[in-house]
């Protein structure tokens, strides 16, 4: 029983680690991701749009199967876990072999190996020493290092380059796992939210995507925000001046723009939104004394509810600001929060006479008493309050992602462009009793180019032999058989 359990486990393990499983999983990920881009997705689509696009029965089915939110569905997560497990299993299954190959290079070829090696050549030499010396010089000629291998039975030469290339493919898969790990950490411990600030205000409460509030251990103060546009009116730049305040002290400050966030203790603040709150910031009013009052014409600036003395007796207060006003039945109402049709209500009071005058900009008939004001008030300029919308995110896993990406780029370069090449040079005695120099070579990829390199090495060895062994009666026999297997 125990044995069969183990064999069953072994079977599952082998299935999981096979390339076939890997490719089937890739195909499944492709199909479901494609579905996720074609079917409207809940998190990014307006609920009404989804209602309109599908019939109720269809929508129930899509919701039940999670197809309206593929990338957050449990089964999609399970699929990604399967992919990770498959990568791990495949690596664990193949790695020991590769590691053995990597850590203990095969330096001294035996007869069997020599028989089956596809790329090899034989050169007749006078004796072992001369042949090995020539080969040594040939390696030096190309700038390759070579090792003298001493065995009880023989001396031989071994030379190799870029052994690391054998490991590269494992590094690629490990880097993919590292990227996944970063994604998982962010899914579990990361969060994203939104923070709206008006210049001068500060807050430490971030509204998360779920609607919940999250408090930060510090607060963010906005010291200004604005936009710049091109001549044709398209937006050019949005900016906000932000400061991090902790315990009453300013810890950090930065003017952020789109593409350049503020980072403080792992929390990032991005410029994502900008607009007007519909509230008044400053109203500039020109004040001209009326007939009964002495004084000079001047300008005053008012903010909401601010009271400004016009003279010892008279005061003016900005009582109301309506960004988009409409008059109905003798009352003024706000239609929207967009500053498209603004109205302001000022109250002028005289203490002596106890007279209160309602001044309206613009002068709304039936309500405004602009005529009876002791000062003639005229609006000069209007500054409305702006707000800046900040995307706030905490992604502790992103460093794993970037490390994984960099690692993958390097490893892929090794996988595709760095070739592990090995050469063996061994003096042998052929069937007729002549001393021959056996040269063998192997490369783990790009074998066509390697054949050329090998040929050049053999030619060079022959050239190096010439002074010592000019009259070869046997030409070198370069035997090359290319195999089908392998990449």
């Amino acid at each position, binding site marked *: 029983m125990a044995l069969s359990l183990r064999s069953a486990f072994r079977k599952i393990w082998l299935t999981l680690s096979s390339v076939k499983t890997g490719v089937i999983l*890739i195909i499944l990920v492709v199909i479901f*991701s494609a579905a996720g881009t074609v079917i409207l*997705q809940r998190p990014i689509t307006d609920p009404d749009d989804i209602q309109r696009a599908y019939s109720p029965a269809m929508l129930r089915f899509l919701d039940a199967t999670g197809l309206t939110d593929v990338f957050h569905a449990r089964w999609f997560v399970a699929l990604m876990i399967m992919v990770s497990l498959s990568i791990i299993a495949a690596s664990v299954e193949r790695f020991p072999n590769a590691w053995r190959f990597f850590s203990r290079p095969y330096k001294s070829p035996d007869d069997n190996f020599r028989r089956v090696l596809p790329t090899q050549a034989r050169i007749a030499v006078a004796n072992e020493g001369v042949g090995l010396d020539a080969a040594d010089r040939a390696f030096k000629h190309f700038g390759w290092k070579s090792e003298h291998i001493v065995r009880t039975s023989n001396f031989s030469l071994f030379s190799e380059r870029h052994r690391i290339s054998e490991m590269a493919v494992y590094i690629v898969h490990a880097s993919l796992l590292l990227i996944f790990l970063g994604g998982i950490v962010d899914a579990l411990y990361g969060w994203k939210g939104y923070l709206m600030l008006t210049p001068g205000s500060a807050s430490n409460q971030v509204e998360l995507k779920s609607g919940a509030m999250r408090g930060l251990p510090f607060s963010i103060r906005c010291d200004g925000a604005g936009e710049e546009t091109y001549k044709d009116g*398209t937006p050019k730049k949005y900016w906000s001046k932000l400061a991090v305040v902790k315990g009453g002290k300013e810890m950090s400050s930065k003017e952020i723009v789109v*593409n350049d966030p503020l980072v403080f203790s792992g929390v990032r603040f*991005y410029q994502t939104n900008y607009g007007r709150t519909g509230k008044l910031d400053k109203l500039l009013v020109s004040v001209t004394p009326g007939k009964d009052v002495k004084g000079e014409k001047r300008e005053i600036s008012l903010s909401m509810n601010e009271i400004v003395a016009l003279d010892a007796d008279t005061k003016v207060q900005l009582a109301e600001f309506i960004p988009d006003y409409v008059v109905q039945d003798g009352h003024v109402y706000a239609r929207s929060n967009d500053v498209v049709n603004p109205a302001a209500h000022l109250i002028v009071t005289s203490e002596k006479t106890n007279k209160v005058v309602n001044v309206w900009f613009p002068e709304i008939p039936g309500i405004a008493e602009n005529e009876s004001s002791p000062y003639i008030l005229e609006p000069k300029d209007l500054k409305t309050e702006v707000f800046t919308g900040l995307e706030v995110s905490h*992604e502790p896993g992103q460093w794993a992602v970037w490390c994984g*990406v960099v690692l993958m780029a390097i490893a*892929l370069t090794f996988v595709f*462009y760095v070739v592990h090449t090995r050469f063996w040079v061994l003096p042998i005695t052929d069937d007729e009793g002549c001393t021959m120099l056996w040269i063998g070579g192997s490369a783990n990829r790009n074998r066509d180019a390697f054949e050329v390199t090998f040929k050049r090495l053999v030619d060079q060895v022959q050239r190096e032999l010439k002074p010592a062994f000019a009259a070869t009666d046997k030409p070198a026999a370069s035997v090359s058989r290319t195999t089908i297997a392998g990449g």
Partner: protein
Amino acid sequence: MARARVEQPPATGMTLVVMVGLSIAFLLFIAFLNVVKNGNILSEANLLYAALVFYAGAGALYLGFGVTGTESYIKFASVATWAGLVANTGAVAHRWYEAGHPPFASLYEMLLSFVWTLAALTLVAEKRYGVKVIGTVTMPVAIVGVVLMQLLRSDVRPLVPALQSTWLHVHVTLAMLAYAACALSFALAMMFLIQDKAKTEVFLAATSIFTVSIYAAILSRFERWGGFNVIAWDAENKTEVFISRGVRLFVTIPDLGWLMLLVFAAVAAPLVFYILATVRNNEGFLSVANRAVFISILLQSLALVFFLLRARDGRYPSLDADGLYPTSLAASPFILAGLVGGIFANLLYLLLLWRRDDLESHLPDADTLDRITYKTICIAFPLLTLMIAAGAYWANRAWGSYWNWDPKETWAAITWLVYAGYLHMRITRGWRGRRAAYFAILGFGVVMFTFFGVTYLLPGLHAYA
């Protein structure tokens, strides 16, 4: 009898070279007259026009080489490609200077860079690897690209804040290089299939499926009573007309839908005959299918002509709003590209059918082609990886998240996965030759969908291109 044949000039065919040369000269002369009138010689539009003329000349010569096998055509075709590349480089440089940023910011600018890379790679493949007929496939793609550019919005628009980043250039350069390498691997895989003596029926099936899917997509614009919907176009502002935010206004061109339906039947016919031939195992159906391809090309050309005539600056009623609204060819660049692409694919098939054996003798052997296809994918795959990584890093800086499962992102990942699948099958399973070639072709299909399809069918955050 035999003498009459011999007396014909034995395919040295300077005629084609002279004809192409004369037409290039003529077109450039006409353009020159225009320029003299307007003053500015080195404007971007003129350079692009020159590039188009040269690419078209090169395409004709490459095709001529495919048909007659005359070696000398290749030399002239190369020269024409070089000339086109120079003009194209001028257009890119002009654009760059004018806009103040590399030409990557809109679909128009991306196409400009893409065509440039494709032409450059064609020359590389030809000179470095000796794949001479590759221009037969890549030049028409370049021509379609330049024609599309004439229709897309080309005014220099300032960069919106999200695009003002160095990462834009890194990301898009990598994307263009990767996509061009994918295009090259596609062309090489096609050459491989020809050299590998894949049956012409396979190509028949492939081109038919391609064309049928184009017309199926086009017919999604079919309206009741045989009308055909195209987007209403504001000629003055060169933009689409919107009813409300994000909702386009469509106008209905009467009767054009019927024609499209007819052409759909015509392009489906070869596929039906092909299926009949395989199911019944009857070779006779194949020759019928080949004849049906011929008829379908004629009808497709008819559809193209009618579409050009009706959609060019007409005014038509709409179902969603009162009154007549104008439309223009510029409003439907992708329908136009689909129509041209369909004709082109079928012509390529006919070319293959006629000049099969000669073509084979002009290609490197199948093994070499297979290997170069693999090599181009070895170049494309790391570039794709870096392109996605650069995009993710940029998204993280701009939007606060490196992965949003946005359609463009997802499809880029799908492309990456398809090529990853190819590499796994090839390296560990030893998939060579025909199966690998089909995989390479599939990969390029996904690339094209990611590039064009996603932008127009599945818009998301990645709305610039």
